[in-house]
């Protein structure tokens, strides 16, 4: 990971830059005048001809996307169109049935472990252990991924659950658990955030905190892929991907089922038996 070692205060600073301000894109003012783009460097995340198969069924096919530093990619589409599957594919939790994922032009499917260091994934599950306190959970994940972001206390504060730091997760409401899951994004750095319905269970303040975090992340050259209803200012570097456009046709379905595809006509061998 190409993250410059900065004092913690510096890393915390960008979150105070307002989203959509007058600053040129991707450049913010931190302490000691460090340009934020340097935090993550310039990256490019691409998908080429992606196809994904869930439960033996092809959910989407021949899908391309490109995402550059500071960019946002919003996934749209009805239920079952494969938003979660695509996000899980991007996170290398699922191997694409077809196509390839590229990070800076290099395929990541062969080395998912190093790609994993580049990303944060927030899925439907909050990974909140009932017996662990909010602070312990965050400390644990920062220990697992490296504590190179803001401090645990600051991250909890930023998502408005600082006063619940000592509460075991079993006493947290579902919205608070969600905030806790999102606070993970801030305690360790990763240029790519993959967010699957991150606002589920959040109240207005929670959504605002998330938006602030996202704006700060983008300002520092981070990129975001999300299936969400948060409204982003359209225009600069915000793209939408309508997944229903990539639903496979019947022929694709037949072909994509591995090599047991369309040419496996039963009669090709049935006569011989």
């Amino acid at each position, binding site marked *: 990971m190409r993250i410059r070692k900065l004092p913690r205060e510096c890393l915390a600073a960008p979150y105070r830059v307002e989203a959509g301000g007058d600053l040129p894109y991707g450049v913010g003012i931190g302490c000691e005048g460090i340009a934020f783009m340097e935090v993550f460097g310039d990256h490019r995340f691409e998908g080429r001809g992606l196809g994904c198969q869930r439960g033996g069924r092809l959910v989407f096919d021949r899908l391309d996307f490109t995402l550059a530093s500071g960019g946002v990619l919003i996934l749209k589409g009805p239920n079952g169109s494969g938003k979660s599957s695509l996000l899980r594919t991007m996170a290398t939790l699922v191997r694409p049935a077809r196509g390839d994922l590229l990070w800076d032009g290099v395929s990541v499917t062969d080395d998912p472990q190093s790609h994993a260091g580049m990303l944060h994934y927030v899925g439907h599950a909050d990974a909140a252990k009932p017996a662990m306190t909010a602070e312990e959970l965050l400390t644990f994940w920062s220990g697992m991924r490296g504590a190179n972001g803001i401090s645990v206390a600051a991250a909890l504060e930023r998502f408005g659950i600082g006063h619940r730091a000592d509460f075991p997760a079993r006493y947290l409401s579902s919205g608070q658990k969600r905030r806790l899951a999102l606070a993970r994004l801030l305690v360790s750095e990763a240029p790519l955030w993959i967010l699957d319905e991150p606002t589920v269970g959040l109240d207005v303040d929670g959504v605002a905190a998330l938006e602030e975090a996202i704006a700060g992340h983008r300002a520092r050259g981070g990129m975001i892929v999300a299936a969400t209803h948060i409204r982003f200012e359209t225009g600069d570097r915000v793209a939408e991907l309508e997944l229903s456009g990539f639903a496979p*046709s*019947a*022929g694709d379905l*037949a*072909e994509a089922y591995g*090599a047991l*595809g*369309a*040419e496996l006509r*039963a009669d090709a061998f*049935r006569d011989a*038996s």
Partner: protein
Amino acid sequence: MGGYATYVWSSYGVVVVMLAVMLISSVIGGRTRDRELTALEERVGPRRQRRQQNDPEDTRHDA
């Protein structure tokens, strides 16, 4: 068979019966699926065949 005929013949019997059962059940299973597949293809088939005729890349797995 030196007084052991029961054991010898029953073990050969078991072998023959098991071999036959495995073979017959597999063949019957294949036949049932064959019929099911034929019925399904007749139902879904026309749509698919039309598509395949239009699809020049149909042979891509042979490449």
